[in-house]
């Protein structure tokens, strides 16, 4: 067998550039940047997320405001604003891009690099966070334009946005888990079905005390009920610690399921078995 060859036999010297691990933070920023760049190039995935919440806000308020406001002290526009935000951020995810990466082989190209494996998912989630914040701003602006006022002021609006963002990330663990586990775009699209019970089997149209029958029982088990309660308190009541803790508990209960599922699916995909 021949010995190692003299690589300087050619005309061009070997470049001095040497690869090294970039580090976790830089990996997340790099992949987050790539996921963010893809958003404006994929407008068909954003437009529904912008239109649907505004549509529901207008329809719900237009149809139910007069009836709902017969309940003493209920400002129905303020009541509906968190619902509009819920529709704006829930399930808004780059999981469809991730699954295309897997199908097209780009996921493997990234896996060939020394990139931190967790960053391969967190980069997408950073982009999701930026996107849901961006989608929430026009919805909040619409609310302010039609007369909704935050009892908690500007800081409350920021907290409102923050809770929406954390919720979006907790929920998005589920479509990411599906994307990573199956590598199948149809399965990711089907995960949208989760959206229906999560967002409709709750206090989406009227307050909990106005619900009757089985619905009044089911909403107690839906974490979104507590999420909406916390967000509504920021709009209508002020800083109610109990409601905010309930909202975080609701988000946490979803995250407790979705984050381990997503991480398990990620590690399953990159474990090389």
């Amino acid at each position, binding site marked *: *067998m*021949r*010995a*190692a*060859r*003299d*690589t*300087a*036999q*050619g*005309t*061009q010297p*070997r*470049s001095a*550039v*040497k*690869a*090294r*691990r*970039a*580090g976790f933070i*830089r*990996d997340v920023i*790099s*992949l987050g*940047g*790539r996921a963010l*760049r*893809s958003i404006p*190039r*994929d407008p068909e995935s954003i437009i529904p997320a912008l239109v649907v919440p505004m549509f529901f806000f207008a329809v719900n308020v237009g149809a139910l405001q007069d009836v709902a406001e017969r309940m003493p002290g209920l400002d129905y526009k303020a009541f509906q604003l968190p619902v509009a935000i819920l529709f704006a951020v829930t399930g808004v995810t780059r999981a469809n*891009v991730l699954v295309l*990466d897997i199908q*097209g*082989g*780009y996921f*493997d*190209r*990234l*896996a*060939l*690099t*020394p*990139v931190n494996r967790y960053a391969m998912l967190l980069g997408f989630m950073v982009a999701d966070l930026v996107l849901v914040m961006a989608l929430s701003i026009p919805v909040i602006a619409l609310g302010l334009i039609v007369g909704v006022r935050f009892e908690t002021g500007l800081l409350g609006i920021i907290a409102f946005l923050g809770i929406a963002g954390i919720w979006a990330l907790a929920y998005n663990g589920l479509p990411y888990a599906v994307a990573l586990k199956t590598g199948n775009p149809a399965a990711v699209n089907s995960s949208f079905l989760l959206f229906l019970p999560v967002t409709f089997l709750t206090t989406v149209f009227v307050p909990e005390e106005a619900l009757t029958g089985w619905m009044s029982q089911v909403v107690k088990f839906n974490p979104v009920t507590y999420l909406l309660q916390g967000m509504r308190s920021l709009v209508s009541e002020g800083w109610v610690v109990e409601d905010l803790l309930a909202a975080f508990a609701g988000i946490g209960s979803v995250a407790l399921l979705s984050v381990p599922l997503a991480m398990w699916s990620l590690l399953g995909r990159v*474990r*090389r*078995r």
Partner: protein
Amino acid sequence: MPEYAVVTEKLRRSFGDVVAVDGIDLLVDAGEIYGFLGPNGAGKSTAVRMLTTLLMPTSGTAFVAGHDVVREPVEVRLRIGAALQDAALDPKQTGLELLRLQGRLYGLSGRDTAMRIGELESLIEIGDAIKRQVGTYSGGMKRRLDLAASLMHNPEVLFLDEPTTGLDPISRSRVWDEVRRINRELGVTIFLTTQYLEEADALAERIGIITHGKLAAEGTPAALKRQLGSDVIVARVDGDAQQAKRAVENIEAVEAVDAYEEEVSIRVANGAGYISAVALALNEASIRVRDLTLRTPTLDDVFLHVTGGRLQQDEAVDEEAER
């Protein structure tokens, strides 16, 4: 740089009951172009996925650029580049964005990334298209960008998994030129898988023929052909090639006979001196001969000899690429 770019011992990978790679031993010199030749499903891609740390071996060992692919996957990743089948690129990024991201993930500074992009632009001739989204590229341009992405971090070993499958003949020829340049000018070891005999013959300094997950033969193209003797007489017959084989195998000076479908390959030291004897023997056995040719051995003959089958897929794939 270690003496050997790739060292494997009894490398094996199974998927359930199916053994995709079955105990392969390899020694690839640093700086050489090694061709891994085999038909679809032979185990080439599985072997490459193990060597590039994307897949764990079921058993055996593999060292790439001096590091164990199982125990030191990150060390291996830092030293290898790979262009896998079907140019795995993100269609929504521009070529430039894709290369910059690649540089960042390998820990390159902005200056080094810009320098490498400058060097690679001239090497792969992407031109202004580098500023366009990859989704607008032709197949050949995607392959060249994929090559550039694989080289961003200046790897010691480059894995190319069927780099020209699906390309038209002109694009294929350009990729060949680029592979030679990368090896010659940058000193990069190239581990190439291919199902094209012509490609292996043209590019690889040494070839390993893989079939059913096993390494059936290995050597330089010239040495592999030399093993078959100096000439090959090929008779295409109507009817049973096995009968034709029996008719000619006792001719004096015939070294070996391979029969495949309607074709008999007769290996002799002096083909010109024995072609008439072959014709006569076939005639005496009442075998109708459609054509009789004399040529020097090809890799296809080597492949037939070691695997018992032909590897004639080039034309079919070319036609597919043209469609």
